[in-house]
């Protein structure tokens, strides 16, 4: 199994532990990752606000680079995945639009033929690798851990950009992965809501209130941690949780675990190798509870 690796900006900036954990579990699972050093930011929906054509062109450029490698794209960020999926859908549905975009791509001698398949690691683990095969690699089932899912908006909406109709099982993929790895699922309505990150610099009070709402809710449901396939959600839910606790006038202390860290813990990889010490909210109680080697 080989993929064109699209780590996104945040996993090489504010969440280096995500990039680290992804590479480590992929290596152990024999999933080969081909770097794309020329690939750019997807625009994260922000560029698209102002100039959708520009945003779509940047993604077409990345798609063309992956086509050149002859590989499907592996993403590790809900936002990257969603934005790429939306761009891909627009281009596939409208050949004229794609042709116009290709005029811009010719500036770098590139052409997007419309065959790229961006796919989130979460979906790849279930659809391409297979849960059964993944379970063969599990040396330390996460029995006893109570874990709450948190998807990130772009991995749940809009459904047609995520091919939910063709792959209905994507809609509860995170819950199934959590349970397959032996943990107890803490289901809650907030799992598909917004973490608040996009308005952090615009309306911090509201953004932090969203952090408080979701983390407090799973705390009250007895969760040991939240698991997210989105580093932007992680940045807000983890990094701004101390502020959220202050705003909500209550202790929260809810560790926010990246998806590949969850898989890595079940595979017996040490906490240090997975970068679990690089979180703002202390992950030690979880590590101790699960008996994960500190490393």
């Amino acid at each position, binding site marked *: 199994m080989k993929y064109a690796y699209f780590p996104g*900006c*945040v996993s*090489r*900036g*504010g*969440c280096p*532990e995500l990039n680290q954990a992804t590479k480590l579990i992929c290596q152990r699972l024999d999933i080969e990752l081909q770097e794309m*050093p*020329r690939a*750019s930011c997807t*625009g*994260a*929906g*922000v560029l*698209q*606000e*102002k*100039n*959708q*054509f*520009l945003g779509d*062109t*940047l993604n077409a*450029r990345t798609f063309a680079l992956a086509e050149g490698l002859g590989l499907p794209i592996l993403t590790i960020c809900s936002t990257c995945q969603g934005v790429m999926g939306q761009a891909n859908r627009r281009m596939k549905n409208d050949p004229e639009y794609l042709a*116009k*975009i290709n*005029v*811009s*791509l010719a*500036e*770098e001698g590139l052409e997007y033929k419309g065959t790229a398949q961006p796919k989130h690691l979460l979906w790849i683990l279930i659809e391409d690798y297979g849960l059964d095969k993944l379970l063969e690699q599990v040396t330390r089932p996460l029995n006893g851990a109570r874990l709450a899912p948190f998807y990130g*908006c772009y991995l749940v*909406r*809009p*459904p047609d950009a995520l091919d939910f109709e063709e792959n209905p099982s994507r809609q509860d993929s995170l819950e199934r992965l959590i349970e397959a790895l032996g943990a107890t699922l803490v289901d809650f*309505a907030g799992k598909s*809501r*917004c973490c*608040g*990150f*996009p*308005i*952090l*610099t*615009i*309306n*911090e009070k*509201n*953004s932090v*209130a*969203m952090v408080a*709402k979701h983390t407090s809710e799973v705390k009250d449901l007895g969760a040991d941690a939240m698991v997210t396939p989105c580093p932007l959600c992680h940045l807000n839910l983890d*990094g*701004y949780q*101390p*502020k959220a606790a202050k705003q909500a006038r209550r202790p929260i202390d809810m560790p926010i675990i990246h998806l590949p860290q969850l898989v890595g813990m079940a595979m017996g990889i040490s906490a240090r190798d997975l970068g679990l*010490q*690089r*979180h*703002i909210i202390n992950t030690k109680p979880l590590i101790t509870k699960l008996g994960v080697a500190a490393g």
Partner: protein
Amino acid sequence: MDVTLNIRRFDPGVPQPESYWQSFDVSIEDNGTVLDALIKIREDTDGTLSLRCSCRSSICGSCAVRINGHAGLACKLQASAVMGDDNVITVEPAGVMPVVKDLVVDFEPFWEKIRAVKPYLQPQGLEPESEYIASNESMLHLSSVTACIMCGACVSDCTVLEVDPTFLGPAALAKAYRFTADPRDGDTDGVSKERLQDLTQATGMWDCTRCTECVTACPKGVAPMDRIMALRDQAIAAGLTNSNGARHAEVFGELVGHSGRLDELKLPVKTVGMFNIPAMLGFLPVGIRALIHGKMPSPIHKNIEGVEGFRRLYKKAEEAGEE
């Protein structure tokens, strides 16, 4: 077809009222809607169940409720399409707005926001000698927004309204766009600058998180969030760039266009402004915590490989997109 409806009920008439779940088994036609099931329960099983409905053909906007956790019109959704393997459907009142009784919510906060955006044409300048002329194209464009039936589904599921009741919200902002995009509104070029100015204030267009809940919830394809994004575009085009939201969008493009990747350190600083001391101090505790935990992005921001070619392409696509 047999279905089980788990309904969240609320009776304000009892001492210390609290919401509770009640389950009803009901038999409906195979192609029956969730509303058919609700009406059958009210008619046959429990006459005290309160709900709003009228047209039964998704045009009056009365029956928006939360079905399996998400807002929608009970009359538009077939029960067979939304029930789980166990034939169970959960029905709750719409979110955000206060519950009056069972599935009936108080729409006053909804109407208050609609009124706040002044939902009527405000042309400036001299009146034309005869009628105002608007192109077919512009009116066709507006028809997708005027398709709104004021059902409140978008408001019910808005993630910002959940934490901040002062936010104008998706329905009112989409309604505002219906006027800012109308060539008859605003100055003689159809630019509604004063309206846009009002909407750039706190609680307005820049407070939307782009979570897309409203787009998914809307039963009429109004896509409120897309209208909010169009409002932002209009505001920037009208020169209303002195807000964190406008700067965030501008700076994001600048940074990505320069290096191909987002510079996470510069984005927040440039958004609030380097000399905005209170905001900069606000970043400090977060920054220090990030530094201690090895999460601070490197101050040396690396460009993507072949950035010169990328910059040329970016510029070309930016210009092509603006046309």
